[in-house]
């Protein structure tokens, strides 16, 4: 049972979804550049910036804290690069070094803040408080939402997220070409005259901005999840960058909306209180990823297993036809009786035989198999390809004649035949 209360649900839902979209968009380039964990590092490292800003301003001043967090995020990016370059440390370890020291500093500073009677809770930075965005003077019906008042009373966090999302969209559309080249071929980017490094920093600044804008409302765990999960899922759906980006936005929105209501509705079914919204969205994003990884029509585990099976069956069928053809050629007479001769397992052989009969390529039973005219044509083509390849490998590639059979056995199913050849293959057999 899902109820939607404008006052309690509207702004938290918008904030969470905006955060998801913003991070999901930028995440595409992180995933492609193998830097998915930058979000993890940055969102852990903003903690000391936040607490320091609080200690300096001696009060809860949103803009000072935003500045502090953004500075800490930037410092993280620069420090990671420095440790990587100057210290010659492996990238992953460099990230770990910087963010864990920064986070430890933050935890320590929080304790000092606690001494002033105010507790900045580290776990709240981790999983945020979207509930705090409740709108107490909300209009009772959706129709009343279309008024200037709605914009006027929009919480600051939602405004920030809206601005950050728009900025990300602008950044990506303006630099789309450059980002694409830098993501797939940084060396080409540099040789084309724009610096992939500079673009990397710009992207990192955008990630830091998205992190800081998001964590206040939704916590850093959602940021980390949304920087990776939607983009990773989208990468398994599409091979092209633009569709991938659009898919990632769709996944982000779906995780945001479904996760939001699941956090409230699922526990309610069992008469329990709502659970963490950010956590629930993360779990939904994870489930969406798992579903995509299994069921994606192009890259999914199922689809690939299916394609592989189909291909294996086709290869087995062709091998069977070629075997019968070769035996006919040698005049050994009756076709293969034993499964060992076609090197297929018994149950595979039966299924391949069924397929061959269905396409009317063979007649008769195991032991008296014969090729039909169609079957003979297919087999002939295959054997021709096989022997042409053998000839090519021996003459042009310098492979020893007793080593070419295995390669030709594989090539015959895929590669087109070499255009011409002699009458006989290296083993002295005629080329059909």
């Amino acid at each position, binding site marked *: 049972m899902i109820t939607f209360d404008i006052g309690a649900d509207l702004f938290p839902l918008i904030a969470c979804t905006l955060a998801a979209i913003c991070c999901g968009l930028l995440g595409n380039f992180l*995933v492609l550049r*193998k830097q*998915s*964990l930058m979000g*993890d590092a940055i969102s*852990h490292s903003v903690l000391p910036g936040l607490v320091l800003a609080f200690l300096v301003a001696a009060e*809860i001043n*949103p803009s000072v*804290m935003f500045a502090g967090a953004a500075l800490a995020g930037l410092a993280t990016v620069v420090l990671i690069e420095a*440790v990587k370059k*100057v*210290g*010659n*440390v492996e990238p*992953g*370890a460099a990230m*770990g*070094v910087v963010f*864990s*020291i920064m*986070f*430890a*500093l933050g*935890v*320590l500073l*929080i*304790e000092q803040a*606690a*001494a002033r*009677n*105010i*507790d*900045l*809770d*580290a*776990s*709240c930075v*981790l*999983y945020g408080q979207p509930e*705090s965005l409740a709108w107490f003077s909300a209009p009772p019906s959706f129709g009343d939402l279309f008024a200037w008042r709605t914009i006027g009373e929009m919480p600051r966090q939602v405004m920030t997220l809206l601005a950050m999302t728009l900025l990300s969209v602008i950044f990506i559309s303006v630099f789309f070409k450059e980002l694409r080249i830098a993501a797939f071929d940084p060396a080409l980017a540099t040789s084309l005259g724009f610096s992939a490094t500079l673009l990397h920093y710009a992207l990192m600044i955008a990630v830091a901005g998205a992190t800081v804008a998001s964590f*206040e409302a939704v916590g850093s*765990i*959602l940021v*980390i*999840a949304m920087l*990776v999960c939607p983009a*990773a899922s989208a*990468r398994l759906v599409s091979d092209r960058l633009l569709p991938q980006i659009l898919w990632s936005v769709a996944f982000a929105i779906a995780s945001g909306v479904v996760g939001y209501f699941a956090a409230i509705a699922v*526990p309610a079914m069992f008469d*329990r209180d*709502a*659970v*963490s919204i*950010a*956590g629930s969205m*993360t*779990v939904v994003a*994870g489930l969406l*990823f798992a579903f995509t990884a299994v069921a994606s029509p192009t*890259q999914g585990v199922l689809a690939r297993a299916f394609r592989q099976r189909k291909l294996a069956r086709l290869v087995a069928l062709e091998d069977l036809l070629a075997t019968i053809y070769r035996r006919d050629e040698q005049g050994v007479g009756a076709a293969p009786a034993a499964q060992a001769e076609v090197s297929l397992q018994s149950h595979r052989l039966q299924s391949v035989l069924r397929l061959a009969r269905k396409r009317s390529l063979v007649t008769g039973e195991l032991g008296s198999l014969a090729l039909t005219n169609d079957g003979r044509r297919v087999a002939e083509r295959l054997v021709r390809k096989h022997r042409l390849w053998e000839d090519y490998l021996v003459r042009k590639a310098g492979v020893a004649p007793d080593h070419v059979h295995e390669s030709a056995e594989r090539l015959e199913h895929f590669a087109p035949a070499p255009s011409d050849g002699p009458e006989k293959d290296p083993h002295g057999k005629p080329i059909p």
Partner: protein
Amino acid sequence: MIGLSAHLGSFHSHGRTSITDVTDELPTFAEIFETLTFQAGFNTNMVVLGTTLLGLAAGVVGVFALLRKRSLVADAISHATLPGICIAFLAAVVLGHEGRSIPILLTGATLSGIAGVLCIHAIVRCTRLHEDAAIGIVLSVFFGAGVVLLTYIQKNASAGSAGLDHFITGQAATMVTQDAVVMVSIAGVCLLLVVLLFKEFSLVCFNESFARATGWSVSLLDLIMMALVILVTVAGLQAVGLILVVAMLILPPVSARFWTDRLWLLVLLSGLIGASSGYLGSSVSALLPRKPAGAVIVLAAGVLFVISMLGAPARGVLASLVRRLSLNMRIASEHLLEAAYEQEGRPIPGDQIRGLARLRAWPLWTLPLMKLTLNRKGYLASVTAEGWRLTPAGLARGAQVSRNHRLWEQYLVSYADIAPSHVDWSVDQVEHVLTPELVAELEHELRMRGIEVGAS
């Protein structure tokens, strides 16, 4: 606003001071001495001993994670323990046990850590995503699930759930002797396994394909390494917390790497650095109010990291800076000697030196350093208004460098088929590093070709 609840004392309470006390009460020397020498009361001793051994084990295990470039897998593992802790708690409550029983919770943490590693493995195996994305997905989704369960427990479960969130940022102060015993025994198991499998681990780290070729199962050894990482992570949950425990696995080995290139020394140093940060961190935390052990341990390790990165003689930043500078100075001063040789021993006027500096793009501040380098080698006789005058030894060295230059040039032209107009620059780099053996060989090669090289 940013989780600003004004609840008091939920984080850390200390025996001697109240949380509202702003001034830090400094401990006396007697207290410091007692804590550092394990005489400060049984509980403090156990915490200090436990974190020291934990640091040792984490440092040792972390070396292999670093060398296999798996440091951040540890981050995913530590985050992945949270749902296991919560499920173990819920299961224990349902079965009528005490929910906050440490062995039960840590068992749950271990199991979900293992599940996390397997998920990373599966994602990398079965999709085209890289390990970084797999780590990010597992880290965030498992942790998100943990947070969902945690909020569920906090809002719905019966009493006794307080303190589950201490696993996130750690709280050594609430540890009891039993917890320290768990830590010590896990650390012991890890160290024992590393000692037993040292040879195999180093083989996998440095030559994976050779290990495979000699019949070792690389994936099995990798799995054992990851099991060790999980064990250390779980052992560190209580004291350091799941976010920071990864630091104990990364910081010591990265720091130790600056000091040495030998594996056994690396393992030893890393263990030592880990142990000392554990020891110092937990001691400071015990002595001062409002210093959570996990953070202080990590910061201690961080200080050791910064010291190592800057000051280590083998691969440290300062050392390599000095090495590079002195090489540059040697090369620059040899160019100067060459110039002097070409002027047949007349002093080189200051104008010409500055011109040379411009030509070679030496900053002007390097000139005094160059003077120093020449002086130390006994190549510089005097600096007068006329210019720099060299000693006979300096002139001889100049002749030698000049000869090296021409030999190599001749070699490139006659052997490597490089156009005579192009050889000068590449020779400039090489002439300074030619060893006497190489020079002799060059002379031989050129004589074989019938090119007259003259006497050295």
